[in-house]
């Protein structure tokens, strides 16, 4: 019974991540894009798919996952997320340098790029801070990491939602909602635990 439940939960997690990628892969727009543009687009979708996994992994919520393994996976996925964002921006740069330069200099006419650029700098800053984690106090680390993650998740979700692209709309909205809900759950979980401890 427990193993059936675990199987269902892991399957649901897998589908939540893979389904948006599969639906995007069947987009009619792909026919009119260069290979580099397609890679850049899918790197962005992959980055979005990773975000709802991160709170799950770091808190080791899925059944059968222990905290040390969860933390290791969280760090690996964080590295993959940074790499995906780099490929996303680099690929778009090759596709249309003036559009990416406009976006990076915050003078693009499209609001979605501003959200994306904010999320990009937040994810890079989070990665750099993670490198100095041992030099930070646990509280300073937690507050800075959560603050940056909030920008990454909200910025990334709004960025994706404003784009007319290869992502299928319903799966895109569901994935963005999932990413925001998971981030919120990850943020409030320690508070809830602390509250329970003090009231006992």
């Amino acid at each position, binding site marked *: 019974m427990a193993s059936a439940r675990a199987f269902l939960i892991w399957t649901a997690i897998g589908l939540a991540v893979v389904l948006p990628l599969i639906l995007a892969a069947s987009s009619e*727009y792909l*026919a*009119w*894009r*260069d290979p580099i*543009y397609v890679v850049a687009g899918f790197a962005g979708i992959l980055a979005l798919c990773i975000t709802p996994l991160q709170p799950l992994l770091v808190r080791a919520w899925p059944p059968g996952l222990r905290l040390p393994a969860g933390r290791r996976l969280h760090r690996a996925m964080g590295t993959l997320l940074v790499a995906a964002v780099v490929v996303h921006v680099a690929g*778009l740069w090759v*596709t*249309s340098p*003036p*559009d990416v330069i*406009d976006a990076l200099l915050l*003078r*693009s*006419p*499209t609001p*979605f*790029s501003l959200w994306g650029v904010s999320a990009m700098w937040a994810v890079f800053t989070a990665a750099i801070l993670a490198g100095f984690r041992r030099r930070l106090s646990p509280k300073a680390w937690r507050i800075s990491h959560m603050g940056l993650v909030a920008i990454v998740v909200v910025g990334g979700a709004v960025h994706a939602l*404003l*784009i*007319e*692209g290869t992502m299928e709309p319903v799966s895109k909205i569901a994935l963005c909602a999932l990413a925001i809900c998971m981030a919120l759950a990850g943020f409030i979980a320690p508070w809830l635990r602390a509250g329970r401890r003090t009231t006992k």
Partner: protein
Amino acid sequence: MSQAGLERRRVLAAGGALTIVGLAGLSLPARAAALAATPSMRGGSNNYIPGAPVVEKIGGGGFWMSGTVRRAGDGAPLAGQRIQIWAHTTEGSERDMRSHGATLTDANGVFRLEMPQIVPALGQAHAHLAYDSGEFDTVFLRPLLPSPKATSLEAHFVLQAV
């Protein structure tokens, strides 16, 4: 009940139409008296290649890009003005030379150019249009399609003499 509803709707429609005609008649001369020049849009010049040739049609066509070119101040239509158009279409990215073409305005300052269907690129489906012939100030426009499925788009230029 339905008869009365229909009647009421017809009266409202007729009244609305009269109001629009009346307002247009009143406001047109006033607006033309001090027509402001169209400002360039941010990102409008992205992937511009100067000197694209005047063509009958870009590629296989199927999408209609149209608009007007007028003079700032009095709003007089400008004939024979060269407007360059480019976009990411079903036949190529907006960096490709084959995605660029130019057309000339007619006696009424109207331009119209058939081009391949525009597809969403780098976030939203959009076109680029440029006036860059020197007689007037350069203007780059970057209008968005109302929907990625739209098969036509309008853009209007009001040019300021140099």
